[in-house]
């Protein structure tokens, strides 16, 4: 059984990375590198879907910050998907650092946020 996993899908303007299982110091960096490596330059941003995550520790938060910094350097956005009942909220609350990026409850909302709120776009 693998502890945690990442599933990458490409939507029209964004990359969706769905993390599942447990993310800790044993796999966090590798998952972060996978997400950054898979993100095409032309994508507007990345949706990091944490709805399937059962456990996330400080190494996981660190990597989320790392992903955000890498994307920022390339002018890309990061939107996190964290449903209300997710255990990720426990980690964020306990670590007292707030949210490491813009957060939505569903992937659809996140995709809309990445494609740009401005109707002038379409």
């Amino acid at each position, binding site marked *: *059984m693998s*502890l945690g996993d990442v599933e990458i899908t490409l939507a029209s303007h964004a990359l969706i990375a769905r993390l599942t*299982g*447990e993310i*800790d*110091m*044993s*796999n966090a960096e590798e998952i972060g590198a996978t997400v950054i490596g898979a993100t095409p330059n032309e994508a507007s941003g990345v949706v990091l879907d944490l709805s399937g995550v*059962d*456990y996330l*520790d*400080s*190494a996981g*938060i*660190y990597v989320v*910050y790392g992903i955000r910094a890498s994307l920022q350097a390339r002018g890309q956005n990061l939107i996190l998907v964290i449903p209300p009942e997710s*255990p990720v909220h*426990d*980690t964020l*609350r*306990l*670590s*007292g*650092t707030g949210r490491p990026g813009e957060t939505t409850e569903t992937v659809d909302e996140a995709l809309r946020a990445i494609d740009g709120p401005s109707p002038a776009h379409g």
Partner: protein
Amino acid sequence: MTTWSSEGQPAPRLGTGQIALLPAESIEEASDQVRSSYRFSDPALSELPLEQLLDELLNRVQEALEVDTVAILLYDEEANQLVARAAKGIEEEVERGVRLPLGQGFAGRIAGERVAIFIADVDHADILNPILREKGIRSLLGIPLIVEGSLIGVLHVGSLTPRTFGQADLSVLQMAAARAGPAIERASLFAALEHEHRVSAALQRSLLPKRLVEVVGVEVAARYLPAREEVGGDWYDVMELPRGQVGVVIGDVVGHGIAAAALMGRLRTALHAYAIEGHGPGRTLELVDRFVQSISEPAMATAAYAVFDTYSSKVCYATAGHLPPIVISATGATALDITPAPPLGAFPYGRCPEHELTLGTDEMLFLYTDGLVERRGIPLNQGIDALTDALTGSPSPEAACVRAMAELVPDEGLQDDAAIVALQNSPVPAELHLRLPAQPKTLAHVRRVLRRWLAHHGADESDVAEVTIAVSEACANAIEHAYSPAPASFELDASCRNREITVAIRDEGRWRPPRGSNRGRGLSIMVAAMDDVQIDRTDTGTQVVMRRHLKPQ
């Protein structure tokens, strides 16, 4: 119990014209040894195929030492078990496919510690092998079989009357071992693939899991028993699932031979794949049923799949045309009264309902195939009753497997192959004292152990989540401190008094101050999640002691 180290007393290795004599032996004994050496260096032995060679060697050992029983067990490296290979006086041992764990019991210790062991008066608590107990063996002497430094098995002799085995007896046994060892080794290189039975037996073995999972709070044991004549399509599987769950599977493909064994491999893989995707037992069996329907050749199988949740102690299970699982509790063993769904591949779009039960501490779930209980001319119910009788009082899954084989497998072997798997809800220790390797992958293990331990002490979901993350963070620090290239470890102790839990994590590394704005978060999490966090750094290591009151129940 007396042990002789194999280093301390070198085995007499007989070259041409050489006879090794051990010191302090009388002339009579020495001349006995001369006779024994001829017995085992007889060139005629070299011409015998392995089966007959072992048979002849055992006869000669029995004759030379005037013992009631002689047995050779071979070491199965993959399973880390000893398997009965040849025997005199206790032939049932081979027929029943006795398997013994390394390190425990008489033969297990000989193999595990590589020492000769003599037991003058057998205390049956020391003996794991039920056949030795049934026979009423009083004295035992056994030695490890070692070829070029590798353990290949155990050779032991037994007496039904109390008897003292001495150095001379040991030497005779060592001579026989020196002869048998290389022959077994040589033969095993060629023996594998002689005819269909062997091919499919090898295939069957390769398709079954090599190692069972290790999850705290769960004990598992399993067996596959080939039929006398032909292999079949029975299988078992054990898998670790996310969120502290363990899945156990038993299955039986209709038919025999290579085709059945190959189909078994496909079904085991399909079921395993659906199960680790997170489908429950009912849905998993439904998906395997669709898979069987999609196979071009006609195929049918029965199976049972159960998922045990280590946090809630609940078992969710479903069966497709399979015999009822048995629950073993302190009061007895009972076959569950359920109606199975149709067999896999029987009807298009069959539905497979799920059932639920709770396993109390020490209780077991026992799954088996019909090969174990079906006898020509005897109603199936009688076979199942005989099995529940045999299982009653089994203290562990290993014991349940051993008892089922001892009572249900006839001396002449099984007509049909059989598989069994037993899972026990084993007790959670009151306190944890763990020594753990300082490696990142240890963290997941720590969390699994801790979650179950916390749930056992009545912690609710948020207590469990918050304490688990704090402890995992402290362990992550201990692992980070261990930056020497040598293998390092750390210790974790946990106790609970009056609903206050105390967890101590000790490492032998130097405390490293957090680096960068993100690295300090582990410590913030520990402080926020626990009532009290004490960090004690010294030159020899760091100790973190954390306390937290659990919410009232």
